[in-house]
């Protein structure tokens, strides 16, 4: 059966979406009539569309054009991105942002770009962060996190 599937991505997506619809339909059945009427309607629509997607995956393949990804770069970026958010309130906005920002510059620069250029990028980036920090804090009055160590 699996061999007759022309568009495996659509098939897998369709199956996952049907499972999701069933779960949400079940969840909606525990709600009051007013709270459940719209979830019932949308999960039913989602199930019908997913079934169409599955049937279509046997007939034709719709190619999705994607950029080739560098899995190492992307993994590092995701980890640093998450760490940036995680430490934002703990270590403070400025410190976390300066570290994470410059680490991301290093990752994206790789080994081909001269060190002097990377250093210039880092200085420019750090100035940009400080400028925006003061703009947000003083002009837009957004209380950005100061961090546990810098709290007055």
């Amino acid at each position, binding site marked *: 059966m699996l061999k007759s599937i022309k568009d495996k991505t659509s098939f897998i*997506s369709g199956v996952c979406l049907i499972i999701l619809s069933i779960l949400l339909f079940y*969840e909606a059945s525990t709600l009051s009539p*007013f709270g459940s009427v719209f979830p019932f309607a949308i999960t039913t629509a989602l199930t019908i569309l997913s079934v169409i997607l599955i049937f279509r995956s046997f007939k034709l393949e719709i190619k*999705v054009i994607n950029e080739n990804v560098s899995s190492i770069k992307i993994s590092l*970026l995701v980890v640093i991105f998450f760490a940036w958010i995680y430490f934002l309130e703990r270590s403070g906005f400025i410190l976390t942002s300066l570290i994470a920002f410059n680490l991301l510059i290093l990752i994206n620069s790789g080994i081909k770009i001269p060190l002097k250029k990377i250093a210039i990028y880092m200085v420019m980036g750090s100035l*940009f962060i400080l400028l925006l920090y003061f703009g947000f804090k003083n002009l837009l009055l957004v209380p950005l996190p100061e961090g546990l160590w810098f709290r007055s």
Partner: protein
Amino acid sequence: MTNIFTDFLSSLSLINLGLAFSGVVAGIIIGALPGLSATMAVAILVPFTFALEPSSGLIVLGAIYTGAIFGGSWSAILINTPGTPSAVATTFDGYPMAKKGDGDLAMSISCISSFIGGIVGVICLALFAPPLASISLKFGPTEYFWLAILGLTLISTLAEGDNIKSLIGACLGLLMSMIGVAVIGGDMRMTWNISFLNSGIEIVSAMIGLFCIPVILDLTSMKGKHLSENETPKSLRLKESFLIVFNKKFEALRGAFIGTFIGILPGAGGSIASIVSYGEAKRSSKNKDNFGKGEPEGLIASETANNATVGGGFIPTLCLGIPGTPPDAVILGALLVQGIRTGDTLFTQQSSIVYTFIFGLFLATIMMLPLGLLMGRYAYKSIIKVPREILIPIIIFLTIIGSYSIQNNILNVYFMFFFGLIGWILNRAGFKASPIVLGLVLGQIAEQGFVQAYIIGNAQENIFANYFARPISIVLVILILLGLFLPTLKKIYNRRKNA
């Protein structure tokens, strides 16, 4: 007549001109930053206006609002991330234009189109406010439900990519909008005992994640320049932009009228307006195959419509006291604080304040044209010159600071990150971000309309008639069906004709 002329002169005072100028500049900058919406821009600056004369305070708020709606197109064009939800349709053709090296042209066209839309909206506000306001009262829950569904079906059939997957994306967006407390009934839904889901998903942080993170991750792996540079980097391409918009003047006016009309409907806002206008432009265009690949006509349609909602939205706000869009709600609050009572007597009893405000809005829209062209040119030149190595951390930084500042809450940043990763995975499976975001934006309007119509129909013992037999509903349902099935029927017809 003499009074109106005096109001016009009063709006031209040096202080009002200065306030309109600074309001437009601040609005453009705030609107261009993903996460900082027009509502937030207006809300932040409301307290500062209390020290001003009522009309001057209103002028600065209107100027910020006008600037912010236009500013939202910048990030949509340059980094494929709408600065405000009303710029979602701008990404369809704006970003492809920038990728092809026509980013400066796109920025100029967007500015001219926003100017046209803004002017038409303000003229309608000045001339036809009371009669137009009564139209909004003809829209009941059923009509709002169908209007939201029309927006969703249009985006699903218009956005680049697979239509079925786009419709599924719209359903996913609607389901996401249901997380938290139900709009009617008050049930706690899809929270799975996770406390931070109780208040639902913050739309703007989800939007930033869904649009921005896939771009960031693709940029990381990309080789070469992120945006192409055109061969004449020193030119403003003004003549070319004006010529393109002039050649599409009827399309621009149509977009502006669609925007004004949808702006009148309370709660509908620029996101539906720009999608409906884009859909109409694609349907009637000779170049429909180029839509989504960098067609200026698509950009004109989207930008005229979303800026026209500014003037349109003020019509029910001023005449009925019902805000047309979220920023209007904030401005309505400011009006009440200033002691201005909205309603049908506003245009007669406090006409001086209202007309000074309308003229101020008019001036702000006129100022937006040179300011937007000038600032847009430098924004574009700066973005293409920034090396990718530094651009990626800058975009990440903006996503974090933008989603944090929505409610000064770190949870919104986590939401943004989480939705971004989901968006990237879905994007690679062929599910685009725009239908999901629109589903999320329109979810509450759709559900409220659907459930209220259901309750009314149930009470009248004729649910079917309440959904399908009202005159405006019939028109909307026909448009939805045409949007869904016309492309397929056309394909079948052409296939048979060729066979």
